[in-house]
């Protein structure tokens, strides 16, 4: 079996599906929005809530599943202190991205875009993972990158949840419902319930309404519930295909929802990627510029953390770190999600979405950096 085939088999089917569904949806949206814009925007705006606020619950649940599994022995987050350096690096990347975003929008006079700074935090987890695997293969730099991307997106999601209320917020009702949902999930776990449906139907639904009522983006509904799903004792790694014999609740959940999430991602691309290819303002470059500046923040913050006593993983040096930073400049699905979450409909949102799509060029940047620095597959 060739090396590439072995890598492909070890990459989660979820990621492979993601690579197929999302781009097809994005391309369909771009073509449609630029040929029959009236019908496109009518449909996209009609189903945006169902896709972005309901369907994306399951995409974020699958991402959360990876994080939950990473906390068990063998996982990238076990013990927690292993994540300290990637978290510090992510923080540096987020800060530099936000500063660059705000500086750019201010300097070009796109003041109305300044409120969309949260989208500058976004790193596309599956997209950057695939690029990293293509560059590094199986290398400690890959889990480092995944922890970094998850940390950056977690910061972004926290900002979305706390700073950008959805509708009229009723925080007391939301908190009450959420406490009930978490209590119910804990009860199901303690009661030894292995089927994932009771977790989804009961606590999952309650959590969605809790967030909706509390003014928090409801796509995060399963994030606090997934950790209560019974899971395996060992983890094979982030975004790695589970063992065929695995039958724990989280694995069964992933197997059941992988295909529907593929449909959700297609619809997500279709609903969110339809932007006009002409007539946009210079502000569309705010997100790409923030993303391109992110490697500087990542390397600087990692440098600070290393000076403070933390250590880079084995076989990860400064050159690998810089390539990891470049790989983390892909925003794509998370940048689209954050943009749609923080910016109401209108021309500004279109600019941000176009910027999110442009960050796909981060993949090229990562390859160029790897080639230049002779890292990963370019080492020889």
């Amino acid at each position: 079996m060739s090396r590439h085939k072995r890598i492909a088999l070890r990459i989660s089917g979820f990621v492979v599906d993601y690579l197929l569904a999302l781009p097809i949806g994005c391309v369909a949206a771009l073509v449609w929005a630029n040929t029959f814009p009236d019908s496109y925007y009518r449909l996209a705006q009609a189903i945006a809530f169902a896709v972005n606020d309901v369907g994306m619950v399951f995409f974020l649940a699958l991402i959360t599943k990876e994080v939950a599994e990473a906390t068990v022995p063998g996982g990238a987050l076990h013990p927690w202190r292993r994540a300290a350096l990637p978290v510090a690096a992510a923080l540096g990347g987020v800060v530099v991205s936000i500063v660059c975003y705000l500086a750019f929008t201010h300097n070009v006079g796109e003041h109305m875009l300044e409120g969309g700074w949260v989208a500058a935090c976004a790193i596309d987890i599956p997209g950057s993972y695939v690029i990293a695997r293509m560059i590094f293969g199986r290398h400690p730099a890959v889990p480092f990158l995944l922890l970094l991307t998850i940390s950056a997106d977690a910061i972004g999601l926290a900002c979305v949840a706390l700073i950008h209320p959805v509708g009229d917020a009723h925080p007391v009702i939301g908190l009450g419902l959420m406490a009930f949902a978490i209590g119910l999930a804990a009860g199901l776990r303690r009661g030894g319930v292995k089927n994932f449906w009771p977790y989804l139907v009961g606590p999952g639904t309650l959590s969605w309404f809790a967030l909706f009522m509390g003014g928090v983006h409801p796509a995060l509904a399963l994030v606090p519930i997934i950790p209560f799903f019974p899971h395996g004792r060992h983890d094979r790694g982030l975004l790695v295909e589970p063992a065929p014999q695995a039958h724990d609740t989280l694995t069964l959940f992933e197997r059941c929802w992988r295909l529907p999430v593929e449909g959700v991602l297609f619809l997500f691309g279709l609903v969110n990627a339809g932007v006009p290819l002409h007539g946009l303002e210079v502000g569309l470059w705010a997100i790409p510029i923030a993303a391109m500046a992110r490697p500087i923040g990542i390397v600087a913050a990692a440098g600070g953390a290393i000076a403070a006593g933390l250590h880079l993983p084995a076989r990860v040096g400064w050159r690998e770190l810089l390539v990891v930073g470049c790989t983390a400049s892909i925003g794509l699905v998370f940048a689209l999600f954050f943009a749609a979450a923080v910016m109401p409909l209108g021309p500004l949102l279109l600019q941000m979405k176009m910027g999110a799509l442009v960050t796909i060029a981060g993949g090229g940047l990562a390859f160029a950096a790897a080639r230049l620095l002779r890292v990963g597959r370019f080492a020889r």
Partner: protein
Amino acid sequence: MDRKCVTRLLTTLLLVISAWCRVTAQEVALPSASNSVKFAAIGDAGSGSQEQYDVANQMTRFHTKFPFDRVIMLGDNIYGGQGPSDLVKKFSQPYKALLDSGVKFYASLGNHDDPANNQYPLWNMGGQMYYTYSTKNVRFFALDSNKVDQKELTWLENALKSAQEEWKICYFHHPLYSDGGTHGSSVNVRVLFEPLFVTYGVNVVFAGHDHIYERLTPQKGIYYFVEGAAGELRKGDTKRSAMTAKAFDQDQSFMLVEIDGNLLSFQAISRTGTTVDSGTIQRQVR
């Protein structure tokens, strides 16, 4: 009479006709009735350039003949810096004469405006991004086309539904229809606003964003104007289409509008004071 004499005579005649045309083109082409609603419209004005000051001077000159009492601002009211000195240089200084004579400005904001400027007292926004006010038989709706959320749409529907005035005029920054080559129609905003405009009988819509003047043929029974050249200008940017009724993109411009009973009269005037478009609109009965 020899040939030389005839040439001189014809040249003189041509000069007289040209001068007469120029004088009449600089005249107010509106009825200027005593009890009518009179206003001016400017968009994309706040560049702080000499051209903006020239347009402002023309507005002041026309104000003496056509005493409008309000100016609707179609967004991008201040470009670049948004501090107090910018507000002076790009707004209160050029329009000083109008402000001093009691003319009120009612702004909507564009993508280059600082959202915090909805607090600026001279723009009469009352700290809101969208608001409504009326005078006589006309109700104005200043909208936010930058960020259109469900809250704004619900507010607009209720405000349009409860409006009792004969004329409903909406204005905002991004044009629902435009033949501007740089931006063009904002279709994503159109699908949000237009159904409400049609359902609740909006008569006329003003927008900016494209740095030209354009009057469009009625779309679904509604008259649309683009006036985004009161400071900025994109020369030759119009891509004429079947929906272009009249366009002017060779110089900066502003609009004067008068509503008297069921008749709306409009006049688009260039930076040099030349009338580039004028006409009347009969109120649509729906």
